[in-house]
């Protein structure tokens, strides 16, 4: 958590740190970006085994080549309304470091797009929406062509997640 806060509070170094390759994906009408190094794998949507007594944004678990990993619905996590699974729905397996260990988690996204090389000049800080809104999980805003992609800090997104004892 402190790590995340430190990251957003150091502009000049953070900017050059933030440049690199990002995996872009779409969720509802917005496009987001994930650091490529944090991405482990991308798989098409497979059936998720629901687990009882888990938060609403925890969809369940999947069996990925012998490993059981939890799957999170990012829409629910962000408080957006859930949608049906389409042909383009994918699961991005990300690696987060939590409590010192590396954990693999799957996040359900609507559409996976491409791997983009984003330069430091294109990245801007997240705008302040007021002190009550927590925008820690936004690393920055990347300008790609005409669109703006929200670069997520996946550690911040999932760090606050309570997996209900799954991990």
């Amino acid at each position, binding site marked *: 958590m402190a790590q995340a806060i430190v990251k957003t509070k150091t502009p000049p170094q953070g900017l050059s740190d933030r440049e690199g390759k990002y995996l872009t994906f779409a969720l509802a009408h917005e496009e987001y970006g994930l650091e*490529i190094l944090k991405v482990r794998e*991308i798989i*098409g949507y497979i059936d998720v085994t629901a687990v009882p007594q888990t938060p609403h944004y925890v969809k369940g678990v999947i069996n990925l080549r012998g490993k059981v990993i939890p799957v999170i619905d990012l829409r629910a996590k962000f408080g957006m309304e859930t949608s049906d699974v389409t042909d383009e729905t994918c699961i991005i397996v990300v690696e987060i470091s939590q409590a010192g260990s590396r954990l693999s988690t799957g996040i359900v996204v609507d559409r996976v797009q491409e*791997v983009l090389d984003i330069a430091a000049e294109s990245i801007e800080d997240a705008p302040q929406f007021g002190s009550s809104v927590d925008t820690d999980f936004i690393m920055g805003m990347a300008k790609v062509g005409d669109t703006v992609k929200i670069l997520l800090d996946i550690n911040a997104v999932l760090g606050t997640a309570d997996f209900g004892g799954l991990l």
Partner: protein
Amino acid sequence: MFGRSSLEVKTCVPVCVIALLAFGAMVGLTFLKAEEIGYEMAGIAAVAWVLMGATTFYVVRRIARPLNRIVAELADGTEQIASASGQVASASQSLAEGATEQAAGLEETSSSMEEMASMTKQNADNARQADSLAQESNTMAAEGIDAICQMNDTMGLIQKSSDETAKIIKVIDDIAFQTNLLALNAAVEAARAGEAGKGFAVVAEEVRNLAIRSAEAAKNTTAMIEESVANAQQGVAITEKASGALEQILASVGKTVDVIGEIAAASQEQSQGIDQINSAIAQMDKITQQNAANAEESASASEELRSQADQMRGVVSQLLAMVGGLQASASGRRALTLSDRPLHDIAAGSRKPGAAESVIPLDHEDAAQGFNEFNA
């Protein structure tokens, strides 16, 4: 004594007068010559002359009166025969004319019946032709419906093959998607590998491009398939409409065939009826011809009768002239009176010929006998 007719007067009187004069002369002569032949002889001769005169007078009167009566009656009868035969002749003539007119009228009727018969025949021919045309239309409409069924089947086949093609396109689309994911994963691994993975990253990018192109092509093909499926469905809708129209055509053609069948049957009956009428008219014509011929015959016969009657009249008038003057013929030449009406009625056919016997008071056998006696 000298009866009713002037005939008797004109016949008897001169004869009697002459006889009286003659016998008177003889008696006178006898008295003159009495001295020569003796008074007894003269007396006997005078008595004899007187007796002879009386006898002659009596005999002549006995003969003359019936003779006069007979001749008068003969003259009357002859007149009546002449007039009657004249009426019969005119009646026969008018009958002949009527029969001729009837024949002419029958000719006209017959010719118009011929026309009607030919028109009916034409009608029947036309009905037959229309019937065959309707049958042809029927067959063609049935063929049309068959063709449409075939078209429907073909459209079904098109639809099926479109569906299968769509399935295959879906498979290709899936493959493209999976390839895309693979390319992304490869890019992730290449990024992890850092510097060493730069070449691999390029390869991954190219693979991704290929996947994108496949997806594009699949999308286009799907669009085209949907278009062709939509066209096929439109074609199906149109064929259904055409099929409906053809069914209606079939129904109306069926009805037309029925109606035409009825027309043909009616024409046949009409034709038969006309044939019957034709034969009846032919018969009527024949009978009319016979009537005309008979009327002609009776006209000529009555002409002959009239000529004979005229001849008889001539003879009778000769006889009259011989017996007692030409006024005899005048008594017979009288205008047609009421008693002549029956003849007209006979000519018109309204009175039985038997009544004529009572009008012409000639007893045929007696008259013939009297005539023969007279002639002999």
